[in-house]
């Protein structure tokens, strides 16, 4: 057996590159991959007039066979032997990267992807946060005005506010954004993506909060308004000083819900050319087809919603404290 091997080697050494390639091909066809690898590795680096393609082919083939047999180190050796001769060979370099990749443990790969993608995602999430904070600032004011209009007893105001709620609560936010960004230009109003998004989110969330605030106001005991008015307060003073402050603890839980939904709803503005967290994740994913991007984006959203949930829970406890004191 040993003799036979020795014999084979001597014969092989003597063989020409073409001969080696042919025999390697035969070994492959016969299913003897080990032998094929040996033969491919014996194909020498070409001299000046030699066939460069054949050499590259042979070593790459050897590397692929090693890889297929899960012998990653030896695959690297094969590629390195090629890179030694042709350090700039692109195919070899990218293949080496792939092998190194395959050798990496899963957690290391995850770590590398995270480090790679997270900065871009965080940058995109700045826009998401801007949208969220803006809407959180504007929609309670808009919602309060709409709610006060609804219960004002002034027929025109009440109907207008009902109409606003009807429209913005009754149609998809996505459609509203499309209307503002793509539809308004038809009547001569062209808005950039950011104002479009802010207006869309602001109106939509005002409409939602309006109903929460209205029900909050109406949940306050009638005696409160009477007591305030009986001491000489005007309707406005009674609302501002007595009624509205008492609604906070009633409306805070549903408002928290809305704001959590808002964080996720901002993803919709990625459809009107806004680059925020969702859009960034989408772009990175399309460039890499790496699902980790999507998981990371989910984590960022989750982080935001978690922080908000806890912050609002604390606020809730503070606002309702007078009931226990």
């Amino acid at each position, binding site marked *: 057996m040993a003799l036979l091997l020795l014999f084979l080697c001597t014969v092989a050494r003597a063989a020409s590159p073409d001969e080696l390639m042919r025999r390697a091909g035969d070994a492959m066809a016969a299913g003897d991959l080990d032998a094929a690898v040996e033969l491919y590795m014996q194909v020498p680096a070409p001299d000046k007039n030699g066939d460069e393609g054949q050499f590259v082919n042979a070593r790459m083939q050897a590397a692929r066979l090693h890889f297929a047999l899960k012998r990653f180190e030896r695959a690297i050796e094969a590629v390195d032997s090629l890179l030694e001769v042709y350090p700039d060979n692109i195919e070899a370099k990218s293949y080496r990267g792939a092998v190194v990749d395959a050798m990496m443990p899963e957690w290391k790969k995850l770590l590398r992807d995270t480090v790679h993608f997270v900065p871009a995602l965080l940058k995109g999430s700045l826009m998401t946060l801007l949208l969220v904070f803006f809407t959180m600032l504007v929609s309670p004011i808009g919602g309060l005005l709409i709610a006060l209009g609804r219960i004002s007893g002034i027929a025109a105001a009440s109907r207008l506010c009902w109409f606003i709620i009807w429209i913005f609560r009754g149609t998809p936010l996505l459609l509203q954004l499309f209307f503002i960004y793509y539809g308004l230009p038809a009547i001569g109003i062209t808005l950039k993506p950011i104002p479009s998004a802010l207006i869309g989110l602001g109106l939509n969330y005002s409409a939602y909060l309006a109903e929460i605030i209205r029900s909050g106001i109406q949940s306050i005991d009638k005696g409160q308004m009477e007591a305030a008015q*009986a*001491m000489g307060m005007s309707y406005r003073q009674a609302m501002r000083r*007595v009624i509205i402050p008492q609604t906070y603890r009633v409306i805070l839980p549903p408002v928290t819900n809305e704001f959590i939904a808002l964080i996720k709803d901002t993803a919709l503005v990625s459809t009107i050319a806004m680059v925020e967290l969702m859009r960034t994740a989408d772009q990175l994913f399309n460039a890499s087809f790496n699902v980790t991007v999507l998981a990371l984006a989910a984590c960022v959203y989750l982080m935001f919603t978690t922080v908000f949930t806890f912050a609002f829970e604390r606020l809730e406890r503070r606002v309702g404290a007078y*009931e226990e004191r």
Partner: protein
Amino acid sequence: MQPLIELENVVKAFGEHRAVDNVSLSINKGEKVVIIGPSGSGKSTLLRTINCLEPMDSGAMRFAGKPAGYVKRDGKLVPDKPKNICALRTRIGMVFQQFNLFPHMSVARNVMEGPVTVLGESKPRARETAMDMLGKVGMEGFADRYPASLSGGQKQRVAIARALAMKPEMILFDEPTSALDPELVGEVFDTIKQLAVEGMTMVIVTHNMGFAREIADTVIFMENGSFLAKGTPADFFDRQCDDPRVQSFIDKIF
């Protein structure tokens, strides 16, 4: 002497039902009027028309000699401008059966609220007034507590202090002790009695005949929106009443 407040043929209806039906009443400064009568007879509604919480349908009201609360427009009676109604209300305090303290404010803030928001007083001054008024009702030690932590009687005393802080010329009490546990009724009555001694003009709706007899200058028995009988406590309680309905009501209560 000129009456502090005069009601003339006051009518207030809810739909077809006349809750207050053609009532006339005149109250002098310092007079204590107690209104008794079965539930649903229109006592609360009458008090509420006095400070315009419930607009009357027809009739007239004069406060300190001047028409108040309502104006005639195109021959119809309509509530006066909000500004004037607010001004009238600062002169007429009201104490409710359910106290209606502001739960989100401390006791002191409850009492300060009117002077600060309505009368525009500075906070330090309003606080001083508030502490005075809380002292009057024996609640100065609770200034920084919140209403939720008080007993019913304490709440009602704070509500009285809150009304007093506006320096009103009269106070309307709508069943001030009906929501209280029996053992807490006394402290509230004592507070009201003390105001009576100081000469406050008051209209008190109550079911407590003992208290009515003790404090009233005038007792009115109301039923189905009208005054069925009116007289001194002695008229009512010390001899048999002419009207069998009034007598049977009083008998039932005692």
